[in-house]
């Protein structure tokens, strides 16, 4: 049976969907991804759908499911590279893709994931950073 390859990059899992999926393949992807998140303890999942010419309600549901499932396993999901026509169609269809983050491209998606994970893991560091800025401002005054 065909499978969509899942790449591991450090903390992240990377999936590039290159072909229009028929349902079985999409369901397999969902299962494989969730298993991989568990196996690798990944903190982020990045799904590139730039090659998808359509996302219908079924595919939308699969993407949403992956996001929800990954989240309860403590991983964030970002969907990147959606085509403009696909976005317009999804809005008209009434789907919002709740449960996943979106980004314009792979680079921006990676940035977003890093940011999300840093926000969760090291909330303290963020506070320190803000303090630093505050002191800087003091000194310029």
């Amino acid at each position: 049976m065909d499978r969509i390859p899942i790449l591991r990059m450090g903390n992240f899992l990377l999936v590039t969907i290159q072909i229009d999926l028929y349902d079985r393949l999409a369901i397999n992807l969902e299962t494989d991804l969730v298993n991989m998140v568990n196996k690798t303890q990944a903190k982020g999942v990045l799904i590139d759908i730039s090659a998808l010419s359509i996302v219908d309600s079924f595919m939308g549901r699969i993407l949403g499911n992956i996001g929800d499932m990954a989240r309860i396993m403590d991983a964030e999901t970002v969907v990147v590279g959606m085509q403009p026509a696909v976005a317009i169609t999804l809005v008209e269809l009434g789907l919002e893709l709740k449960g996943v983050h979106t980004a314009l491209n792979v680079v921006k998606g990676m940035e977003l994931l890093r940011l999300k994970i840093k926000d969760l893991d090291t909330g303290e560091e963020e506070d320190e950073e803000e303090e630093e800025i505050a002191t800087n401002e003091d000194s310029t005054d």
Partner: protein
Amino acid sequence: MKQDISKLLQKKKKNILEDWISLQLADAGLREDLMSNDELREQSAELLDALLQGITGDNLADFNSEGLSPVYEILAGISISRARQGFSPRETGVFVFSLKDAILKTLIIELANDQQALADALILINKFLDNLGIATFETFIKGREEVILRQTDEISEISTPIIRVWDGILALPIIGTLDSARTQVVMESLLQNIVDTGSTITILDISGVPTVDSLVAQHIIKTVAATRLMGAECIISGIRPEIAQTVVHLGIDLSNIVTKATLASALKYAFAVLRLDVKRIQKEK
């Protein structure tokens, strides 16, 4: 006897043309600014030629006969070009109806001896030229509609410029009413621009939108939703007090959308999101 009318008119072509032209020149609605007298003469002669060649005694009563199609074609060409040139419907109408006057005048003179034939001919010619008049107006209006359609296209193109205000920030001031066809155009070009420039923030400025009803709000919400699906943020700016009032009175929920009063404050917000800082440079003492 019917044969006589068309033959008669063909014989008197020169007279009719002269009468027609002088009638047109005498009309108060003559537009010498839009068309020279020579051009007018040329147009008139062309139409009359086609008309007199086309009519036979039989097809005068049958407007759809094939012999007359060149007449309609020429007439359509003339009235469409007049519509584009900015002639008024009346001025275009005079063109055809003065021809009727000219033809009737000739008939009255020529058939003065035969009252019955004159009456028959008058009715026939009247009907025929009235029909030409109607055809003129139809094509005239069609010509105007084409002008309107083209302008609508142009307006929707001109009125939705997408401006790259900063690296990663696009601004789209919307001017005029936002209907569903326009929203489609706006969304398409905006999303394509987002992809092309890799911009993560878009400011949709609606200060040029006259009214925001629930339908317009729906279109705005859709545009915001589509940009979010692409992975970009969309801020709405230019919320005038009266727009804020109608939005709340209509019970439209914009709470999921970042809204700002002015483009300036939206830009400020966008800078904050991108972690940019704009500072006044302190003059050295």
